[in-house]
Protein backbone atom coordinates (compact mmCIF):
# COMPACT_ATOMS: atom_id res chain seq x y z
CA UNK A 1 0.00 0.00 0.00
CA UNK A 2 1.55 3.21 -1.09
CA UNK A 3 0.58 5.99 1.26
CA UNK A 4 1.30 9.65 1.10
CA UNK A 5 4.34 9.18 3.31
CA UNK A 6 6.08 7.15 0.64
CA UNK A 7 5.91 10.04 -1.79
CA UNK A 8 7.10 12.48 0.85
CA UNK A 9 10.09 10.32 1.69
CA UNK A 10 10.96 9.94 -1.98
CA UNK A 11 10.84 13.68 -2.44
CA UNK A 12 12.92 14.24 0.71
CA UNK A 13 15.59 11.83 -0.55
CA UNK A 14 15.68 13.48 -3.96
CA UNK A 15 15.90 16.88 -2.25
CA UNK A 16 18.88 15.69 -0.25
CA UNK A 17 20.66 14.44 -3.35
CA UNK A 18 20.06 17.77 -5.04
CA UNK A 19 21.39 19.71 -2.05
CA UNK A 20 24.46 17.50 -1.97
CA UNK A 21 25.04 18.25 -5.64
CA UNK A 22 24.70 21.98 -5.18
CA UNK A 23 27.06 22.09 -2.23
CA UNK A 24 29.84 19.81 -3.29
CA UNK A 25 30.31 20.07 -7.06
CA UNK A 26 32.40 22.85 -8.54
CA UNK A 27 31.17 22.72 -12.10
CA UNK A 28 28.54 25.43 -12.57
CA UNK A 29 26.46 23.37 -14.97
CA UNK A 30 26.25 20.44 -12.57
CA UNK A 31 25.14 22.86 -9.85
CA UNK A 32 22.31 24.00 -12.08
CA UNK A 33 21.35 20.41 -12.83
CA UNK A 34 21.17 19.73 -9.09
CA UNK A 35 18.90 22.75 -8.67
CA UNK A 36 16.59 21.17 -11.23
CA UNK A 37 16.65 17.99 -9.14
CA UNK A 38 15.57 20.00 -6.11
CA UNK A 39 12.70 21.57 -8.04
CA UNK A 40 11.63 18.15 -9.21
CA UNK A 41 11.62 16.87 -5.65
CA UNK A 42 9.28 19.72 -4.73
CA UNK A 43 7.02 18.80 -7.65
CA UNK A 44 6.78 15.18 -6.54
CA UNK A 45 5.85 16.42 -3.09
CA UNK A 46 3.10 18.70 -4.42
CA UNK A 47 1.62 16.07 -6.66
CA UNK A 48 1.73 13.46 -3.91
CA UNK A 49 -0.34 15.79 -1.75
CA UNK A 50 -2.70 16.59 -4.58
CA UNK A 51 -3.45 12.98 -5.23
CA UNK A 52 -4.13 12.01 -1.65
CA UNK A 53 -6.22 15.02 -0.74
CA UNK A 54 -8.22 15.18 -3.97
CA UNK A 55 -7.40 18.84 -4.44
CA UNK A 56 -6.25 20.09 -7.80
CA UNK A 57 -4.27 22.96 -6.34
CA UNK A 58 -1.23 20.75 -6.04
CA UNK A 59 -1.06 20.12 -9.74
CA UNK A 60 -1.67 23.75 -10.61
CA UNK A 61 1.13 24.77 -8.30
CA UNK A 62 3.38 22.13 -9.86
CA UNK A 63 2.73 23.68 -13.28
CA UNK A 64 3.78 27.04 -11.88
CA UNK A 65 6.92 25.51 -10.40
CA UNK A 66 7.78 24.08 -13.82
CA UNK A 67 7.27 27.49 -15.45
CA UNK A 68 9.52 29.17 -12.88
CA UNK A 69 12.13 26.45 -13.33
CA UNK A 70 12.16 27.09 -17.06
CA UNK A 71 12.65 30.81 -16.57
CA UNK A 72 15.43 30.29 -14.04
CA UNK A 73 17.25 27.69 -16.13
CA UNK A 74 17.20 29.89 -19.19
CA UNK A 75 18.49 32.98 -17.44
CA UNK A 76 21.08 30.98 -15.52
CA UNK A 77 22.40 29.48 -18.72
CA UNK A 78 22.50 32.91 -20.33
CA UNK A 79 24.64 34.12 -17.47
CA UNK A 80 26.92 31.10 -17.73
CA UNK A 81 27.39 31.63 -21.45
CA UNK A 82 28.13 35.33 -20.99
CA UNK A 83 30.59 34.56 -18.22
CA UNK A 84 32.26 31.79 -20.20
CA UNK A 85 32.82 34.16 -23.08
CA UNK A 86 34.74 36.49 -20.81
CA UNK A 87 36.66 34.26 -18.50
CA UNK A 88 36.79 30.83 -20.19
CA UNK A 89 36.05 28.90 -17.04
CA UNK A 90 33.10 27.08 -15.58
CA UNK A 91 34.66 26.24 -12.26
CA UNK A 92 32.74 28.15 -9.66
CA UNK A 93 35.83 28.71 -7.52
CA UNK A 94 37.32 30.81 -10.28
CA UNK A 95 34.23 33.00 -10.67
CA UNK A 96 35.45 35.48 -8.06
CA UNK A 97 35.50 38.76 -9.92
CA UNK A 98 33.83 40.57 -7.04
CA UNK A 99 36.24 39.35 -4.36
CA UNK A 100 38.42 42.02 -2.86
Amino acid at each position, binding site marked *: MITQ*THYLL*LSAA*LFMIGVFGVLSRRNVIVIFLSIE*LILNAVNINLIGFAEYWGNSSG*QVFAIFVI*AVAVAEAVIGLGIIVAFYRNKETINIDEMNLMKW
Partner: protein
Amino acid sequence: MAEAIIFYTLAALILAFAVMVVTVRNTLYSALLLAADFLLVALLYASMNNLLLAVIQVMVYAAGIVLVYVFVVILVNLKRPPEQQPDRGRYRPIGTILAAAVLGELILITATGALRPAPAGGAEAVGSVENIAMELFTNYLIPFEVASMLLLVAMVGAIVLAKKEL
Protein backbone atom coordinates in the same frame (compact mmCIF):
# COMPACT_ATOMS: atom_id res chain seq x y z
CA MET B 1 0.21 -4.88 -5.21
CA ALA B 2 1.16 -3.91 -8.73
CA GLU B 3 1.04 -0.31 -7.62
CA ALA B 4 3.64 -1.02 -4.96
CA ILE B 5 5.96 -2.74 -7.42
CA ILE B 6 5.73 0.13 -9.86
CA PHE B 7 6.33 2.70 -7.15
CA TYR B 8 9.32 0.97 -5.60
CA THR B 9 10.95 0.29 -8.96
CA LEU B 10 10.49 3.85 -10.14
CA ALA B 11 11.62 5.30 -6.83
CA ALA B 12 14.76 3.17 -6.77
CA LEU B 13 15.61 4.10 -10.35
CA ILE B 14 14.93 7.79 -9.79
CA LEU B 15 17.20 7.92 -6.75
CA ALA B 16 19.91 5.86 -8.46
CA PHE B 17 19.95 8.12 -11.50
CA ALA B 18 19.94 11.21 -9.29
CA VAL B 19 22.99 9.98 -7.39
CA MET B 20 24.71 9.33 -10.69
CA VAL B 21 23.86 12.84 -11.88
CA VAL B 22 25.70 14.47 -9.00
CA THR B 23 28.70 12.17 -8.95
CA VAL B 24 29.66 11.49 -12.58
CA ARG B 25 32.72 13.41 -13.77
CA ASN B 26 31.60 13.96 -17.35
CA THR B 27 29.14 16.85 -17.56
CA LEU B 28 27.39 15.54 -20.66
CA TYR B 29 26.63 12.26 -18.94
CA SER B 30 25.22 14.19 -15.99
CA ALA B 31 22.86 16.08 -18.26
CA LEU B 32 21.75 12.94 -20.08
CA LEU B 33 21.20 11.05 -16.83
CA LEU B 34 19.13 13.96 -15.61
CA ALA B 35 16.98 13.74 -18.74
CA ALA B 36 16.48 10.02 -18.09
CA ASP B 37 15.64 10.88 -14.49
CA PHE B 38 12.98 13.33 -15.61
CA LEU B 39 11.46 10.73 -17.89
CA LEU B 40 11.22 8.37 -14.92
CA VAL B 41 9.58 11.07 -12.81
CA ALA B 42 7.08 11.57 -15.63
CA LEU B 43 6.36 7.84 -15.47
CA LEU B 44 5.83 8.23 -11.74
CA TYR B 45 3.28 10.97 -12.36
CA ALA B 46 1.57 8.82 -14.96
CA SER B 47 1.30 6.00 -12.45
CA MET B 48 -0.50 8.44 -10.15
CA ASN B 49 -3.11 9.02 -12.88
CA ASN B 50 -1.76 12.48 -13.56
CA LEU B 51 -1.31 12.18 -17.29
CA LEU B 52 -1.37 15.88 -18.06
CA LEU B 53 1.45 16.63 -15.68
CA ALA B 54 3.44 13.65 -16.91
CA VAL B 55 3.22 14.90 -20.48
CA ILE B 56 4.08 18.46 -19.42
CA GLN B 57 7.07 17.14 -17.49
CA VAL B 58 8.38 15.30 -20.57
CA MET B 59 7.70 18.14 -22.95
CA VAL B 60 9.09 20.98 -20.84
CA TYR B 61 11.62 19.47 -18.48
CA ALA B 62 13.12 16.46 -20.20
CA ALA B 63 12.97 17.70 -23.76
CA GLY B 64 13.23 21.43 -23.09
CA ILE B 65 15.36 22.45 -20.15
CA VAL B 66 17.82 19.59 -20.28
CA LEU B 67 18.14 20.04 -24.04
CA VAL B 68 19.26 23.62 -23.46
CA TYR B 69 21.74 22.37 -20.87
CA VAL B 70 23.10 19.88 -23.40
CA PHE B 71 23.60 22.72 -25.88
CA VAL B 72 25.58 24.71 -23.31
CA VAL B 73 27.65 21.67 -22.35
CA ILE B 74 28.54 21.15 -26.01
CA LEU B 75 29.47 24.82 -26.32
CA VAL B 76 31.68 24.69 -23.25
CA ASN B 77 33.31 21.41 -24.19
CA LEU B 78 34.18 22.64 -27.65
CA LYS B 79 37.15 24.72 -26.66
CA ARG B 80 38.51 22.77 -23.76
CA PRO B 81 38.32 19.00 -23.70
CA PRO B 82 36.46 17.84 -20.59
CA GLU B 83 39.49 16.32 -18.90
CA GLN B 84 41.01 19.70 -18.23
CA GLN B 85 38.30 20.87 -15.84
CA PRO B 86 39.38 19.51 -12.47
CA ASP B 87 37.02 19.07 -9.60
CA ARG B 88 39.07 18.42 -6.49
CA GLY B 89 36.23 17.33 -4.28
CA ARG B 90 37.29 19.61 -1.48
CA TYR B 91 33.79 20.44 -0.45
CA ARG B 92 32.40 16.97 -0.55
CA PRO B 93 32.56 16.25 3.23
CA ILE B 94 30.79 19.51 4.10
CA GLY B 95 28.24 18.87 1.38
CA THR B 96 27.50 15.40 2.70
CA ILE B 97 27.06 16.61 6.26
CA LEU B 98 24.72 19.44 5.33
CA ALA B 99 22.69 17.27 2.97
CA ALA B 100 22.34 14.62 5.65
CA ALA B 101 21.14 17.31 8.06
CA VAL B 102 18.47 18.38 5.55
CA LEU B 103 17.37 14.81 5.07
CA GLY B 104 17.24 14.25 8.81
CA GLU B 105 15.03 17.29 9.30
CA LEU B 106 12.64 16.25 6.55
CA ILE B 107 12.34 12.70 7.84
CA LEU B 108 11.71 14.07 11.32
CA ILE B 109 8.88 16.24 10.06
CA THR B 110 7.38 13.44 8.05
CA ALA B 111 7.59 10.80 10.73
CA THR B 112 6.36 12.74 13.75
CA GLY B 113 2.96 12.97 12.19
CA ALA B 114 2.61 16.68 11.75
CA LEU B 115 0.26 15.73 8.94
CA ARG B 116 -3.41 15.22 9.32
CA PRO B 117 -4.65 11.88 8.04
CA ALA B 118 -5.76 12.10 4.43
CA PRO B 119 -9.50 12.03 3.78
CA ALA B 120 -10.72 8.88 2.11
CA GLY B 121 -11.49 8.86 -1.59
CA GLY B 122 -11.45 11.89 -3.83
CA ALA B 123 -8.43 10.75 -5.76
CA GLU B 124 -10.20 9.70 -8.90
CA ALA B 125 -10.80 12.63 -11.16
CA VAL B 126 -8.17 14.90 -9.73
CA GLY B 127 -5.52 14.62 -12.38
CA SER B 128 -7.74 15.15 -15.34
CA VAL B 129 -7.27 18.08 -17.64
CA GLU B 130 -10.70 19.56 -16.95
CA ASN B 131 -10.14 19.78 -13.21
CA ILE B 132 -6.72 21.33 -13.51
CA ALA B 133 -8.00 23.79 -16.08
CA MET B 134 -10.93 24.78 -13.90
CA GLU B 135 -8.65 25.46 -10.96
CA LEU B 136 -6.10 27.23 -13.09
CA PHE B 137 -8.50 29.63 -14.71
CA THR B 138 -10.71 30.50 -11.80
CA ASN B 139 -8.80 30.38 -8.55
CA TYR B 140 -5.30 30.88 -9.87
CA LEU B 141 -5.90 33.27 -12.72
CA ILE B 142 -3.62 36.02 -11.47
CA PRO B 143 -0.61 33.76 -10.89
CA PHE B 144 -1.24 32.38 -14.38
CA GLU B 145 -0.96 35.84 -15.93
CA VAL B 146 2.06 36.66 -13.79
CA ALA B 147 3.74 33.43 -14.88
CA SER B 148 3.24 34.33 -18.52
CA MET B 149 4.81 37.75 -17.92
CA LEU B 150 7.68 36.01 -16.14
CA LEU B 151 8.29 33.75 -19.12
CA LEU B 152 8.23 36.70 -21.48
CA VAL B 153 10.76 38.57 -19.35
CA ALA B 154 12.96 35.47 -19.13
CA MET B 155 12.88 35.08 -22.91
CA VAL B 156 13.89 38.69 -23.51
CA GLY B 157 16.55 38.48 -20.82
CA ALA B 158 18.10 35.34 -22.23
CA ILE B 159 18.32 36.81 -25.72
CA VAL B 160 19.95 39.97 -24.41
CA LEU B 161 22.42 38.05 -22.25
CA ALA B 162 23.55 35.74 -24.99
CA LYS B 163 23.99 38.26 -27.77
CA LYS B 164 27.55 39.01 -28.76
CA GLU B 165 27.00 42.73 -29.40
CA LEU B 166 23.90 44.57 -28.41
